[in-house]
């Protein structure tokens, strides 16, 4: 979230698209209700199904799964055509005026630089035209046809209401009404918040879905303001924390990228990350990257990280491919390239696409270690549970170690919520049985591995042997100690150049502003710096005082970065420093400094007359309507059909799917065609359950006991399917036999004149736990991910459905 | 009043046993039923071990009552067939009420009043049984819609009150008409009793219509 849960109440329009906030985030959804009741907000829902969120919405419009970019590009076209944009904001705070290189083109669904063989782009043309000083050229009059706003206008011009309706199946009048509601927030004192979740991410074009709405928000001037923003509702109590500390194969803590194998030299690595400002006088925060990196390496290797050793840069792994995501991991497992798997707090047999492939992969392992508080399906993949998990145990040689761990309520620690708050929590009870904390288990594995390397050597023992491990209890480090390590310390006496204040060696840092690139500071996760200072554990603060009743309680827990609650909040004020919306100011310039209810996302004493643009994490300081080289499939979002789709791409039939999607040949062979699998399926959660955990809880099992799919009345009638009757849902990859919920909430959509049926597949049932046994939605889903993140395409794929009888237990 | 030497068997042992089973069932039904009918009478549930016991037992005794009453119907339906002369007796019932039975036409085995009691009960007991089934919560609570149950409970109440009133008439008549009680306890009546109350029946007896063994020496 750029903003906070509480801040949603400041919105004038709440759009829920690519998510189902009421269903999946019922507690946070109270702020949407608050916005409606206290702020007169309109709630708009765009979703393939009439969801629980839609049930309390002011307006609902249906959409075919996987066509959000077409819808949102249509919205952008509408806003630009009706001139319903916040001009001053767009001109001053976005890259609308910047001029794009001549080489950049878009023809027939492809941007310039496409390489068909590698299915990747050479992105060099996706950038600004630079002047002789290396600054991006601009045309503030927007006359130049190559300036971003004009290229954008041209790019979205194809998304007429007719075209949007043909692609998305959304009736034109409904689409236009949504456009109208969205456009109402172009006024400087009006804001729209976008709430989304996996409904946008779980697509082969997931990241571009989100970018599309971010662009809409920039055009409306809704980023950085109260009640605005792009608000990803995280689906897991600590999934925000997971990405923050870099638990992805290509990342390090604080969103620093791991080096690639082309960056064997430390200076080369640094040169591509310390972004030079692209506009005169601009602040580009990532010029500080060296400080962040060196401090991280000091936290990792302590005294072994020295100037001479390039801060132990050589000990970092270098990626040979963009990332080793889970789809890749299971591909390797199936190919015999990965033979051991430590599965910590994760249930891939339920959670990852093409369950059959996951099961085959696990069956080829030498060993599998599962660490989980629950008896997961993954740890039982080898056991025959009847039709829901038909396994021949005798043929499976995988040795499985099932390690029970404590859960969040059985240990101290912090969780990072969607609003980036680090909230400390306290142990409530001891774990049951022989469960141990994840920290204890991981420490144990570390010590034994290190001992093995120490005794037996190995190809490259240094990274492990030199790791610092200076905890009071090395067997089970205390969570507070780990938190302090992430916060960072002064390793020598530090003198502040401006104030002359001295920070003594050994003291905890107050924030990442103190980090140095000379090895005198350490910080395990720079964005968390400030969470645990000499003043104590900031995450444990519980003062709910909200000075303006505007949803910002600065002394409740601690938010990264720097306890800032609304990102880009400099953009909440106009170029002269006056809030766009005087009724809901976030920060403003009082003549000498920036003041307000939030920590400024800007230099606190920087005079607005200096003209430094607000988006200081970008090297041009501007919000990007044109993404430059940062996206795999293009700097503008473009509608590509899901990998499994019932229709051709109406815009460019030759380029149907995301051209930069990575598809393994075996997975491609497992894609179904619309003649055999004519219906569009989409997966989702229900309020009654959380993923595959709560089916282990009696009460949740009572509230939603049994696997089912949702199917519209028209298709059900066509197929003779009765309410609550048994159905067989088939994709090219597997079969699910479950009950049918015949509902008015899913209606056939008219896509390019043809009726298109959508099937809803809730995900929660498996073969362990208290609820009735189920096959699991991932039995059906295709193994392909977003081209940037490899988040699997769970939200749009093809199935067939037939009436059947109850499954017979083997 | 001199004791006659001969007596007439009015009710056989089977008749009497069946009747008294029926009577016990009926009284239990009345007491338990009333305890669930009016708060003033809830105390009666104490006779049966409390409210839960009363509620649980009442329908089972109801089944017993139905079976037992069916026995009575099989045994007594013939002599209760309504005849023309019953109207004449009813017209003269005012004389019967003031103990001037001699002004009423002679009656057979049962007079019109007795027949009315018999047929009232024959109607009311099945009605009570059927409506009782509908409101038998434990087994049939979900078998019928609630509006049907509401009607059933109301009909059940009306029928029960009617049955109780009929029963009071029956009991009082047995007390008022002296020696009737003995007919149902020891089984016999005197020729004088038969002469006074059921003269035609006596004549039938005398003519041997009801068999020989019916008249015997006083025990």
């Amino acid at each position, binding site marked *: 979230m750029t903003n906070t849960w509480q801040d949603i109440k400041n919105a004038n329009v709440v759009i829920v698209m690519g998510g189902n906030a*009421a269903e999946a985030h*019922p*507690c946070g*959804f*109270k702020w949407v209700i608050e916005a*409606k*009741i206290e702020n007169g907000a309109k709630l708009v829902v765009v979703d393939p199904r*009439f969801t629980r969120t839609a*049930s309390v919405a*002011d307006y*609902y419009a249906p959409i075919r799964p996987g066509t959000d970019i077409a819808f949102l590009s249509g919205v952008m076209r509408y806003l630009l055509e009706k001139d319903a944009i916040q001009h001053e904001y767009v001109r001053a705070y976005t890259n609308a005026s910047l001029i794009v290189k001549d080489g950049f083109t878009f023809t027939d669904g492809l941007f310039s630089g496409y390489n068909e063989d590698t299915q990747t782009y050479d992105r060099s043309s996706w950038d600004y035209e630079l002047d002789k000083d290396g600054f991006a050229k601009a045309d503030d009059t927007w006359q130049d046809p190559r300036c971003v706003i004009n290229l954008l206008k041209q790019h979205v011009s194809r998304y007429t209401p007719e075209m949007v309706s043909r692609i998305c199946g959304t009736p034109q009048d409904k689409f236009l009404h949504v456009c109208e509601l969205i456009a109402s927030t172009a006024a400087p004192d009006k804001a729209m918040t976008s709430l989304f979740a996996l409904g946008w991410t779980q697509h082969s074009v997931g990241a571009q879905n989100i970018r599309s709405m971010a662009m809409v928000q920039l055009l409306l001037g809704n980023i950085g303001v109260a009640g605005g923003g792009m608000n990803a509702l995280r689906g897991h109590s600590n999934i925000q924390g997971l990405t923050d500390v870099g638990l992805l194969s290509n990342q390090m803590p604080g969103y620093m990228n791991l080096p690639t194998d082309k960056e064997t030299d430390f200076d080369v690595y640094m040169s591509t990350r310390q972004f030079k400002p692209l506009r005169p006088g601009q602040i580009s925060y990532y010029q500080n990257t060296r400080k962040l990196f060196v401090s991280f390496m000091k936290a990792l290797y302590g005294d072994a990280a020295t100037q001479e050793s390039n801060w132990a840069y050589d000990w970092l792994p270098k990626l040979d491919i963009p990332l080793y995501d889970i789809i890749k991991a299971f591909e390797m497992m199936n190919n015999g390239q990965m033979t051991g798997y430590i599965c910590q707090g994760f249930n891939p047999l339920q959670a990852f696409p093409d369950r059959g492939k996951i099961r085959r992969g696990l069956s080829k392992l030498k060993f599998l270690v599962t660490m989980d508080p629950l008896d997961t399906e993954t740890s039982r993949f080898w056991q025959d549970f009847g039709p829901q998990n038909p396994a021949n145990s005798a043929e499976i040689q995988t040795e499985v170690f099932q390690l029970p761990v404590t859960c969040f309520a059985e240990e101290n620690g912090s969780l990072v919520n969607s609003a980036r708050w680090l909230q400390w929590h306290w142990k409530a009870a001891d774990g049951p049985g022989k469960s141990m904390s994840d920290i204890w288990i991981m420490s144990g594995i570390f010590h034994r591995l290190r001992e093995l390397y120490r005794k037996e050597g190995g190809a490259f023992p240094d990274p492990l042997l030199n790791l610092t491990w200076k905890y009071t209890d090395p067997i089970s480090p205390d969570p507070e100690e780990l938190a302090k390590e992430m916060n960072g310390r002064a390793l020598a006496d530090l003198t502040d150049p401006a104030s002359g204040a001295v920070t003594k060696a050994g003291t905890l840092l107050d924030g990442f502003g103190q980090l140095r690139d000379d090895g005198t500071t350490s910080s395990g996760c720079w964005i968390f710096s400030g969470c645990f200072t000499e003043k104590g554990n900031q995450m444990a603060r519980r003062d709910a005082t909200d000075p303006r009743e505007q949803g910002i309680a600065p002394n409740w827990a601690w938010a990264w970065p720097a306890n800032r609650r609304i990102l880009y909040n400099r953009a909440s004020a106009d170029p002269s420093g006056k809030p766009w919306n005087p009724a809901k100011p976030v920060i403003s310039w009082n003549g000498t400094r920036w003041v307000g209810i939030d920590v400024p996302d800007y230099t606190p004493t920087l005079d607005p007359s200096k003209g430094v643009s607000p988006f200081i994490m970008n090297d041009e300081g501007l919000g990007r309507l044109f993404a430059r080289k940062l996206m795999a499939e293009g700097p503008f979002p473009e509608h590509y059909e899901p990998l499994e789709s019932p229709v051709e791409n109406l815009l460019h039939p030759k380029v149907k799917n995301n051209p930069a999607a990575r598809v393994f040949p075996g997975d491609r062979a497992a894609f179904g065609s619309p003649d055999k699998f004519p219906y569009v399926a989409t997966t989702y959660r229900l*309020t009654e359950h959380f993923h595959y955990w709560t089916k282990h809880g*009696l*009460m949740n*099992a*009572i*509230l939603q*006991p*049994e696997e089912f799919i949702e199917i519209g009345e028209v298709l059900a009638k066509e197929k003779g399917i009765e*309410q*609550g009757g048994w159905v067989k849902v088939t994709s090219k990859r597997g079969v699910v036999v479950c*009950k049918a919920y*015949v509902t008015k*909430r899913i209606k056939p959509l008219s896509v390019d004149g043809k009726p298109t049926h959508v099937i809803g597949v809730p995900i929660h049932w498996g073969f362990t736990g*208290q609820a*009735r046994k189920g096959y699991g939605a991932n039995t059906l889903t295709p193994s392909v991910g977003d081209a940037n993140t490899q988040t699997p395409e769970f939200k749009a794929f093809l199935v067939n459905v037939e009436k059947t009888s109850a499954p017979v237990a083997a | *009043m*001199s004791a006659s030497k001969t007596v007439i068997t009015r009710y056989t042992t089977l008749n009497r046993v069946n009747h008294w089973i029926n009577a016990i069932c009926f009284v239990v039904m009345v007491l338990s039923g009333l305890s669930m*009918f*009016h708060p003033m009478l*809830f105390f009666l549930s104490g006779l049966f071990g409390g*409210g*839960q016991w*009363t509620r*649980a037992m009442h329908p089972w005794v109801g089944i017993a009552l139905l079976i037992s009453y069916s026995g009575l119907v099989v045994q007594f339906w013939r002599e209760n067939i309504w005849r023309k002369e019953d109207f004449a007796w009813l017209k003269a019932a005012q004389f019967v*009420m003031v*103990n001037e039975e001699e002004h009423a036409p002679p009656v057979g085995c049962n007079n019109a009043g007795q027949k009315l009691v018999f047929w009232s009960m024959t109607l009311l007991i099945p009605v009570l049984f059927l409506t009782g089934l509908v409101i038998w*919560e434990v087994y049939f*609570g979900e078998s019928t819609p*609630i*509006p049907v*149950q*509401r009607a059933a*409970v*109301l009909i059940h109440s*009306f029928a029960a*009150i009617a049955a109780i009133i009929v029963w*009071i008439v029956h*009991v*009082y008549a047995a007390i*008022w*008409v*002296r020696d009737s009680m003995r007919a149902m306890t020891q089984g016999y009546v005197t*020729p*004088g009793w038969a*002469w*006074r109350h059921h003269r035609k029946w006596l004549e039938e*007896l*005398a003519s*041997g219509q009801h068999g020989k063994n019916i008249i015997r020496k006083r025990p």
Partner: protein
Amino acid sequence: MSDLQSQDYVRRSASTMTPPSARSHEEQVAKLIDVSRCIGCKACQTACMEWNDLRPEIGHFEGTYQNPADLGPSVWTLMKFAEYENEQGNLEWLIRKDGCMHCEDPGCLKACPAPGAIVQYANGIVDFISDKCIGCGYCVKGCPFDIPRISKTDHKSYKCTLCSDRVTVGLEPACVKACPTGAIMFGSKADMTHQAEERIIDLKSRGFEKAGLYDPAEVGGTHVMYVLHHADKPSLYSGLPDKPQISPMVTVWKGIVKPLAMVGVAMAALAGLFHWVAEGPNEVTEADEAEGERVLRESETEKSS
């Protein structure tokens, strides 16, 4: 069943005496359920199960999100889901939390034959005092909302208590505390009515012209009220009665029939008594015996001759 005591009672089932009503100065409470902001998450159901420590069986999927399938001795509140296509052809998903309405004039209490098994407290809560319940199911027939359910295990009737145990000690009912969107509110009936008025103004401004409060006068008002978008058609909400009333059958049964029947029975008995007093027994006379004997004798003679 709560830890209140008899002085809290303003109504008591099957009781001919007047309850003390010693606390009738207490403010009437009400739970207000704003259907227009309910998302059907079932947190209320869970909270109810938790607080009252109830665990119904794990059921089956029955073609609706409504789980368990029905209210029960262990299911005191239940989300009901209705898919409704309005006049404009737009879908509305009307989700209503079902449970005891705590009528001001409770049909269950009226129908109950067990003294003190159903009581109403001064604050308006209608509560079942289970140890006095005899399991007859009359409350089921008395209720205009089809709420009480009789347990097959202990043969007692159960329903929502409005968390009378919590309310007594100044807490809100468990469902109210758990509701994430504030759709369930609790307070004095006056405050809740006022709150509802504000909500209705908002709903009307959003195009629900028939929005209104469901507080049916036919049962004297209720201590659980709904804000409905379609107050003109409550039955759209999974069969919420349009005009709930205690069935005339029940009114007749528990009203006029009771005294009439008692009078009737008493009259019959008294009639007998006074008849006896006035006329005395109908006795067989010696003459009758003689006549009887004669008839028998004559027939003997006839037969033997």
